[in-house]
């Protein structure tokens, strides 16, 4: 018998649509064909591997979504003891407490103003000043989009700050929803701000209506870099700017960045930026 037909039967069996008659014929063929037995064995391994990938990716996504430590996941996956993971978590909690204390201390005793972080280069304002990665924890300041830890930005937008309501490219946003996101560096978090027009309750869950136009304009307050080419039209900007460039706004080493206080700091910087430009 031509081996193509039994191999199609093997695929049908994987999909659960092999008839009993064909299953009997397949088994008879496998009993006498070593090549098809090997094929069957290898295909089973592929399907098992896909099942394992599905399970591991689901676990991975759930852990990311629930804010589990990336390190904890990796460590447990390779068999590091749970005690060690616990120690890492305790250390992380202590570190966050210390960082939080430093941030609060800095807020209560402001030694510098946000404008200290502004750097001017030619006709462009670099906002904010680049900070070394190792200082990001303590400084709790923003770094520009050309920081290698976040996606490269290839666009810029015009931003105007107007009191408590922020006007972005002529569109108004009622408020911002901070969404903290992880980066490839587990110590670095990016706070993604969504411009929200309103929130509604649907099926018992709170949904937010995001203003796409205002949302697209958001990243500008995080910085305009002289190396970033400027597109000619608003339409081109909106079409071509990757969302990672449009939305990533704040980068720092502390989850405190997602607090309202930090968002206020961002807005304050936006005003400064608007005045500056």
């Amino acid at each position, binding site marked *: 018998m031509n081996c193509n037909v039994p191999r*199609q039967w093997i*695929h049908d069996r994987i999909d659960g649509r092999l008839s009993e008659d064909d299953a009997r014929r397949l088994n008879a063929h496998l009993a006498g064909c070593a090549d098809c037995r090997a094929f069957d064995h290898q295909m089973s391994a*592929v399907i098992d*591997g896909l099942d394992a*990938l599905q399970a591991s990716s689901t676990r991975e996504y759930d852990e990311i979504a629930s804010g589990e430590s990336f390190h904890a996941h990796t460590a447990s996956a390779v068999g590091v003891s749970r005690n060690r993971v616990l120690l890492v978590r305790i250390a992380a909690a202590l570190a966050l407490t210390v960082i939080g204390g430093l941030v609060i201390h800095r807020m209560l005793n402001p030694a510098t103003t946000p404008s200290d972080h502004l750097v001017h280069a030619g006709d462009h304002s670099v906002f904010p000043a680049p900070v070394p990665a190792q200082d990001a924890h303590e400084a709790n300041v923003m770094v520009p989009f050309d920081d290698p830890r976040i996606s490269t930005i290839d666009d810029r937008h015009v931003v105007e700050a107007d009191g408590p309501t922020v006007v972005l490219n002529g569109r108004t946003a009622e408020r911002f929803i901070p969404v903290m996101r992880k980066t490839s560096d587990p110590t670095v978090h990016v706070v993604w701000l969504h411009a929200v027009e309103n929130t509604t309750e649907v099926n018992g*869950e709170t949904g937010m*209506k995001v203003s796409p136009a205002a949302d697209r304009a958001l990243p500008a307050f995080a910085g305009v870099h002289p190396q970033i080419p400027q597109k000619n039209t608003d339409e081109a900007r909106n079409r071509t700017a990757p969302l990672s460039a449009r939305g990533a706004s704040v980068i720092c080493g502390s989850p405190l960045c997602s607090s309202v206080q930090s968002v206020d700091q961002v807005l304050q910087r936006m005003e400064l930026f608007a005045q500056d430009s």
Partner: protein
Amino acid sequence: MPDADLENEPRELTPAVRDRLVRLAYRFVWNRSDAEDAVHNAVALAQTRRRQLRETTRWWSWMCRIVVRQCVALGRGQSRREIRERQRAGTDRSATTDERRDAVPADHAAIALERAAVLRRAIDELPPKQRAAVTLRHLEGMEYERIAEIMEIAPATVRVHVRDAREALRVRLVREYSDWTLAVPVRTVKEQSP
């Protein structure tokens, strides 16, 4: 949430629905940020293309289609970039079987993780239609009819794409692991994993 609840367009995109879309995108791009990017772009695109949502098409399939297309478009640039970077770093995945045999993983969980990583790369390098079909079928667990609706092709054609993708994965894995079927079966690993 069952798909039946999503056949018609919901009034608002709730966090739960959005999470399902991000989860779908994650299976393609393997990165939470990129997945959220793809979904955000897809939602924006869907708003401008609502007229394309014909009455005969179910909303969830239509939305999934836009997300998958965004992911595939996003993945295309990334794959090329990653291959270039791996080649520059001299770490392109072409370790010989002997090298693999020497580097025997410490335990079954490590074997399963390594195989999952190899499969993930292999899927990323499949032709777009095969990649979409096998991802939706085996990683998302969708029915062929649903995949056909998402990909706008006949169910029989989806079966062909899935079959070709499995074949390509089999060839790739046999090439990378000549001892693929001799090593610890993944099913055993899954049973032993907590």
